[in-house]
Structures are given as C-alpha cells and as structure tokens.
C-alpha cells in the first residue's frame, strides 16, 4: 500500500556539497526558478522541505480527527454532506502532500511512522477539542483562514512539487473557509443559545489560532534560511498581522467579540493584539495540549487495527502475481 520505490538510497552524489553547486543553486532560486526533484539541491534544503511538507501532510491527516468528531452529529443533511466532503478533502491534501514529500527521497511509510512515534510534529491547533457544533464553524472560519494566509505564499515556493500541491490545496481551503464562515453566520443569526455557542467557540479558538503562525520573528529558528531559499516569503508576525486585520471586520459583521480586550488599532490601521501566551504554545508542542494523547492514540489505533487489512492486500497481490507468472510459464 505504501510506495517503497523511494526507500533506497540511489547512491548518487547528492550528499556532496561543493561551493560552486551551492552558489549555482542559490542563483537559480534568486532568479525565481523552480527546483524540481531531479535537480541538485543542498542536503539542508532537502531536509528542511522534507520536514516542512511532511509536517504539513501529518497536520492534514490529524486534522481529520477534530472535525470528524462532528460528522455523525452534524445538524442537517446538507451540513453533514459538506463536513464529510471537507474532511475527505483534508485526507486528499494529506495524500498529495506525502506524494510531494516522497519526491525528496523519503517514503510515505517512513514519514507516517515518524508521526505515529511522536517524533514528527503536526500543527498544534489540532490538539484542541471540538466541543460544540460552533467549533466546526470556527475551525472553518479561523483555522482554515489562518492556513490560507500561511499557504498562499507557498504556492510560489521554490520547490516545484510543493508549490503545485499548494495551488490545489488553497483552492479547496478557501471553499472550506467560506463554508465555516457561513456556519458562523447561521449561528449568529439563530437563537440566543446558538449565538452564545458561537461566541464561546471564538473565545476558545482565538488564541490558539494566532499561535498557528508560529513564534514571534525574534525567536523563530527556521526563518532565515527558509527565506533565503524562498520557501518562506513572509515572516510569522507579518502573516499573523495580516490575518488579524482581515478577521476583525468579519467578527464585527458576525456581532462576536474577539477575546482580547486590550487589542487596539494603530496609526497604520493594523490591529495590535495583546501578548500571546507562548508558554501554552510550548506546552502543547511538547505534548501537553488537551488532545495530544487522544489524537496520536486515534491515529495509532487506525494504523494498528488496519495492519491486517494492509497485510491481506499485500498477500493477495503476491498470490496473484505468482499465479500470473505460473500461468505464463505454462
């Protein structure tokens, strides 16, 4: 079931770095050329992208769980179909992101094992629980909204397969975002209980969503080289600011209050948020979020309980192959 072809090292000189090649590589990046899988690239570029793309893929797959939590309880058939289709889209994103990561030489099997063992990270936002239906609206509106802010610049990322995957992902994400906002509009125009449900969801998700853009620029470890390689085109703080400025009028339209009483508009019109609790971020990243254990347990359970199915498929494929060979020999 998993692609094995890329497991083996192909014995080329990819590991050998020389100054001339590195500067040629940088010149191509500076000229806005796309790097493709068979092109020479520095080992650190390969490593950075493998980490980033696979984390992104893991996030899509783990991200199926908090929303999947509401598929069987969606409040109308239209919402149920939309949510099931959305979670299915996320699985599809995961699949083509793994495929993009595989072009860098690590198999999906290895990448998934890294996630299941807890070594590889996924987006911390999915370590928060979905408690009410309003969480489904809020995730679409804010989590997908933040993801789009992060991902649109990635459509111009220097690595071709990643950039192309992102173009498709972004189209579907913006559809999800509109769906989420529409759930919020319906709740906010509904009964007092529904409106309170919407406000409560915003209260719980707002700060974790701001953390999705990553640590403040002064402390971000990966930014410098990623910027030089045109993997990253905007800083964490720039994207966070763009997101907040876009979201404030949407919250006003909904009649909801952003849970940051100290937030003020500066002279440039930007909304300046109060300090973010980076300690919470570090705790969730370290495995101590409300759902870290549940999410990993659910993925491991699916993987372990599916093992006999994958084994059966492989055993059957082997049998079929040897039968065909035997037939051909007759």
């Amino acid at each position, binding site marked *: 079931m998993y692609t094995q072809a890329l497991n083996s090292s192909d014995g080329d000189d990819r590991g050998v770095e020389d100054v001339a090649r590195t500067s040629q590589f940088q010149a191509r990046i500076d000229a806005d050329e796309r790097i493709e899988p068979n092109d020479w690239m520095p080992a650190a570029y390969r490593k950075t992208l493998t980490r980033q793309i696979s984390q992104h893929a893991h996030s899509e797959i783990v991200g199926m769980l908090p929303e999947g939590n509401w598929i069987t309880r969606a409040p109308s058939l239209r919402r149920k179909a939309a949510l*099931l289709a959305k*979670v299915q889209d996320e699985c599809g994103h995961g699949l083509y992101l793994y495929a993009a990561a595989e072009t860098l030489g690590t198999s999906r099997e290895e990448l998934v094992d890294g996630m299941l063992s807890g070594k590889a990270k996924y987006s911390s936002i999915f370590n928060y629980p979905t408690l009410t239906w309003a969480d489904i609206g809020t995730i679409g509106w804010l989590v997908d909204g933040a993801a789009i802010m992060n991902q649109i610049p990635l459509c111009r990322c220097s690595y071709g397969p990643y950039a192309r995957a992102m173009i498709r992902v972004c189209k579907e994400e913006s559809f999800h975002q509109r769906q989420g906002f529409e759930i919020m509009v319906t709740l906010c125009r*509904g009964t007092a209980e*529904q409106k309170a449900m919407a406000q409560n969801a915003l209260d719980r998700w707002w700060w974790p969503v701001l953390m999705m853009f990553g640590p403040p620029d002064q402390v971000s470890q990966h930014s410098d080289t990623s910027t030089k390689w045109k993997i990253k085109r905007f800083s964490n703080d720039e994207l966070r600011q763009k997101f907040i400025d876009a979201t404030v009028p949407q919250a006003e339209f909904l009649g909801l209050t952003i849970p940051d009483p100290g937030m003020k508009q500066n002279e440039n019109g930007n909304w300046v948020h109060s300090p973010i609790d980076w300690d919470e971020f570090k705790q969730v990243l370290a495995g101590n979020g409300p759902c870290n254990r549940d999410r990993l347990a659910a993925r491991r359970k*699916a993987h372990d309980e599916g093992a006999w*199915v994958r084994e059966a498929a492989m055993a059957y494929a082997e049998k079929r192959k040897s039968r065909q060979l035997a037939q051909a020999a007759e």
Partner: protein
Amino acid sequence: MATANIEVSETPLVLYALRRADDALILGHRLSEWCGHAPAMEEDMALANMGLDLLGQARELYTYAAKVEGRGNDEDMFAYLRDVRQYRNLLLVEQPNGDFARTMVRQFFYAAFADLYWRAMMGSSDPTFAAIAAKSEKESAYHVRHSSEWIVRLGDGTEESHRRAQNAIDDLWAYTGEMFAVDDGERGLIDAGIAIDPAALKSRWLKTVTGIVNEATLALPKSDWMQRGGRVGSHSEHLGHLLSELQSLQRTFPGATW
C-alpha cells in the same frame, strides 16, 4: 414542542421513497463513522466517497417523499425528527461497522443489490424515480466494484483476513433476504410500473454474490432463515444508538436553524 416526532402520512408512494431514503442515509452514516479511522488513507477517501453518494441519494429521496406527501415535512425533518419505530430501512444497513471486513461485506451485499435495483428503476414510469435511479446506478456500480475487490483480497489474502471475512458473511447473511421482500402497498406500485419487483433481481444478485464469494475462497452459509422487520420499524438494537447520535443537536435545540 418542536422536538416531538413528526407525523408522516405513509401512503404507498411516500413509504416507498422513505424506505429507500432511510437505507441510503443509515448506510451513508455508518460509512461516515470510518472517516479518519480507516485502515489506509486511500480507504478513508473511498469510504467517504461512498458515504457521500449515499447521503446524496437519501437527500433526493427524502425531498421527493416530502413533495409527494405535501404536509410541509422536509429532508431534515424526516432524518432528524423520526424515532426508531418510524425508520423504514433494511436491518442490514444499520448493522454496526465492526471490523473492515464486516463493513465491506455489508457494503457488498447491499451494493450488489442496489446496482441491479437502480438500473431496473431507470425504467420507472415515475420520472423522479427514474432520474434518481440514473444517478444512483452509476454510483452503486462503483460501490460494487470497490467492495467486491476487497472481498476477494480479504478472502484470498491472509488466514486472518479470510477468517474475518467469513465471519462477516456468516453474521450478515440473514439480513439479505429483506432486500427482496414486497408488501401489498409496494405490490400496487409495481403493478403501476412505478416500482420494480425486487424478487426478479434475486437470481442475478445471487450470481454476482456467489461469483465473488467463490473467487474469494469464501462460502455462503447454508441457512436460509432470513431476519425481517426494518421495513415496518422493527429494528435491531443498534439503530437507536445511531439515531441518538445523528439527531442529538436537533433534539437538544428544538426548532433551531443550522
């Protein structure tokens, strides 16, 4: 109170549409329970796909039932505001997912029937049914292909997968007879050319099923005792739990719009 169950005027045509809608909704719901938990990501995609097809069929059939009934009920009222005794689906489709083999055997038994059924219904004298059938037939053709490929892989895969697939067949077999049953109301619709006689599909269904089961090195049970009751609201214990989950928001917040 708005949480009370709706009343349905079950004329033969309304009941006929509701029964097929309930089949599609309940089986689609069961498949959606897998989402995020399937044995492989490709299966997450495929199960969601089939679930979405079935949900789509359910919505069209409920909407048609509502139109024929003409009492102001709609698709969501049928789905969310009827209790166990008012649901009219086959017992087969409400059976729990169990392991992947059980889900696939359930899917295969149903899809092998639905594919023949919808193909025959394309000739219905009722244009709405004929149109729903044309779309549903294409979908069920894929469902049969997908599930039968899995039955063969599981049956002829490993010892464990063979055992699990055989157990699933043994446990679910008694729920297949209900697909071919007809009551007096349906008999009238069949005579009018609106519905088709499912009994006429049985030999072809059995041929498909036997062919795949044999290829999978599995066996059909010898017993021909068949369970019945779903069509008149006498369900297994499983449906109530499914409905309490499916209907929880509509029941908790009476009359709200979502």
